[in-house]
């Protein structure tokens, strides 16, 4: 009888959070065991948006499969495409022209800012502040407009292709990015006023969902989630790709391990992205935006692994090729999947209100987890 009503024999409530729930931002389904307000267990049930992208990619050619990956982590679609393009290039051993490299990095960083903007607004909404959401979207909208002008789409651009990028930058790109940087620097102070400095917000975030560095590594957490615990894991620094080795930026590390640290990592990371863009925007090299590639791409027999840093952490693309025009097996090591697995560990003992704060700062994108 108790089982039917969702009560454990100990008298704890079993509550379904999701798949339709305002805090899950998608179709994440968490089954949580609650003792009063205190969380005893969190069990994720996934797959509500599982499209088996890995299987789909097995029947698509090396040029075609890239567009599918935009639908994984749709907030950093560019970076997903970038990872796939890099992995194919690694197999083809194609040298990407310098101009294409700079364009890719610029768009990556803009995507990262846009993704963090959305995270900031959505996380603020999770913990009950509505206004930051709209303020974040104002800046995100500017980036989307820039993307639209150059790539022709706002969310799933499919602008990267093996060998370079699909089109040259739009003539307005530089001027618009510069004006965006000005706008952004002006607005970042407002973010602090609205949320970062707020005493209620700080109390909601401090010592909530503490993740130790050992756990972060063992659970495979990457990106801002792990860097909030002081684990250095920025792929852009450790294994530089494209022009990341030549630009000057800091890897943001916070040592608290709690939700506030993860929050601060992302806020400071946005400023680092601005720094990277500022260094690159004036010196876009002349030349081709695309390397010459064959009409039909064939990867040599072998295995290729490429890691990139998306807005959420380390994305790994693992292509196993049999020498054909389509990948034999492709695996996307998505950052959200590993980051989600740590939720049970950090949520236990917290309050129900803490769960949304933790989910907010883990920055879960459900299509990225389900793939």
């Amino acid at each position, binding site marked *: 009888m108790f089982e039917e009503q969702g009560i454990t024999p100990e008298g704890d409530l079993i509550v379904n959070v999701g798949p339709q729930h305002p805090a899950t931002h998608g179709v994440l389904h968490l089954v949580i065991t609650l003792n009063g307000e205190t969380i005893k267990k969190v069990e994720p049930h996934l797959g509500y948006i599982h499209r088996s992208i890995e299987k789909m990619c097995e029947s698509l050619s090396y040029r075609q499969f890239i567009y599918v990956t935009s639908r994984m982590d749709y907030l950093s679609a560019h970076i997903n495409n970038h990872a796939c393009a890099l992995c194919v290039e690694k197999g083809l051993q194609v040298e990407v022209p310098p101009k294409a490299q700079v364009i890719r990095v610029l768009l990556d960083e803009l995507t990262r800012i846009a993704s963090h903007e959305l995270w900031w607004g959505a996380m603020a909404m999770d913990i*009950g*502040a*509505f206004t930051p959401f709209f303020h974040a979207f104002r800046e995100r909208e500017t980036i989307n407009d820039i993307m639209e002008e150059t790539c022709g789409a706002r969310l799933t651009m499919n602008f990267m292709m093996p060998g370079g990028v699909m089109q040259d930058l739009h003539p307005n790109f530089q001027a618009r990015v510069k004006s965006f940087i000005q706008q952004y620097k002006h607005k970042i102070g407002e973010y602090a006023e609205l949320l970062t400095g707020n005493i209620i917000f700080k*109390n909601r975030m401090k010592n909530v969902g503490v993740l130790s560095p050992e756990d972060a590594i063992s659970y495979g957490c990457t990106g801002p989630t792990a860097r909030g615990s002081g684990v250095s894991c920025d792929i852009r620094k450790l294994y530089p790709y494209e022009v990341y080795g030549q630009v000057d930026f800091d890897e943001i590390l916070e040592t608290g391990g709690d939700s506030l640290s993860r929050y601060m990592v992302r806020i400071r990371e946005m400023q680092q992205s601005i720094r990277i863009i500022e260094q690159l925007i004036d010196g876009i090299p002349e030349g081709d935006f695309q390397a010459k590639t064959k009409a039909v791409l064939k990867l040599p027999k072998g295995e290729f692994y490429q890691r990139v840093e998306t807005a959420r952490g380390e994305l790994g693309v693992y292509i196993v090729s049999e020498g054909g025009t389509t990948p034999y097996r492709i695996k996307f090591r998505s950052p959200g999947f590993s980051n989600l697995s740590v939720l049970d560990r950090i949520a236990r003992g917290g309050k129900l209100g803490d769960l949304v704060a933790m989910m907010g700062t883990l920055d879960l994108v459900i299509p990225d987890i389900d793939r």
Partner: protein
Amino acid sequence: MWSFSGLATGIDAWLTQRFNPALSLTIEMVLAGIAVITLFAVLGLVLVLMERKVSAWMQIRLGPNRVGPKGILQSLADTLKLLVKEGLTPNSADKLLFNFAPFLAIIVAMLLMAPIAFAKDLQLWDLNIGVLYISAVSSIMVISILIAGWSSNNKYSLMGAMRSGAQIVSYELSAGLSVLSVVVLVGSLQVSDIIKSQADGWWIFKGHIPMVVSFVTFIIAVTAETNRAPFDLAEAESELTAGFHTEYSGMKFALFFLAEYVNVFIVCAVGATLFLGGWMPFHIGHWQGFNHVMDYIPSSLWFFGKTFLLIFVIMWFRWTFPRLRIDQLLNLEWKYLLPISMVNLLVTTAMAILGWHF
């Protein structure tokens, strides 16, 4: 000058002329009821629109602007939508209590209208324990929320109701204590007495810092008592989807919604009455000339102006702050607000005894 008391006595005289006293009393009661219900409906429409506009402007949006000129008929359209929607009752819910809870909420809100002085001589019932009556009746509100949460047979509703219970019961303390500090100064619980005592200046100005402190605690406490953000844990939508009214739909949901807004209006009216002089115009001590000029502004305008100012403040809070967690919410009350208002009451009492106020 034209006054509401003339109108009331006129109606009374006209009725008693034609009917026997019992019938005329009944008719008067019905008239008063109709007036309150009309006020309810108007308040609901105005406050919902106001909330939407305030939130929109704070969020760099335009807000409703399609229905009617500048969107002023938006809430009417919303009401129409809610009226024609199906009111679902979950299968496993306690049907009687489930359907009763929204009515209890609205009845409580209606009862609270009685002692509020909307303008000079416009008061339904000036009973001698007016403020106590408001504190007492507003506590019944929590019962309707608890009934709604319990009878829905939904875990979200239940948790929302339990949170709300803990919250309202604790915040009633500091709200009561800050009300009490005014009562101590006035020496009466009657609403008309409280307003009259502010003829030479409002209590927030006359009462030095202790009154300001109790005004601030009052605003915080009533924000919590009416379940408004940042204390909207009972319906924290990112945690409990909609809290105690998760299972409600259609008109039953609308009643809860209306009750929330009317409660906001009532607590702001009480705040305006206690601290800002109710319908009393802005008077400064013995500046007769200035006071006379102020008297030319109608008293109802003063009352509604002050009330809506306080409502705006509460909305301003809602659209700026994140929500508190349940333990922080209770910490705030028991560790900060309650000690502060207790010390404050002590100081106010000393002030009243020694006659230090103006």
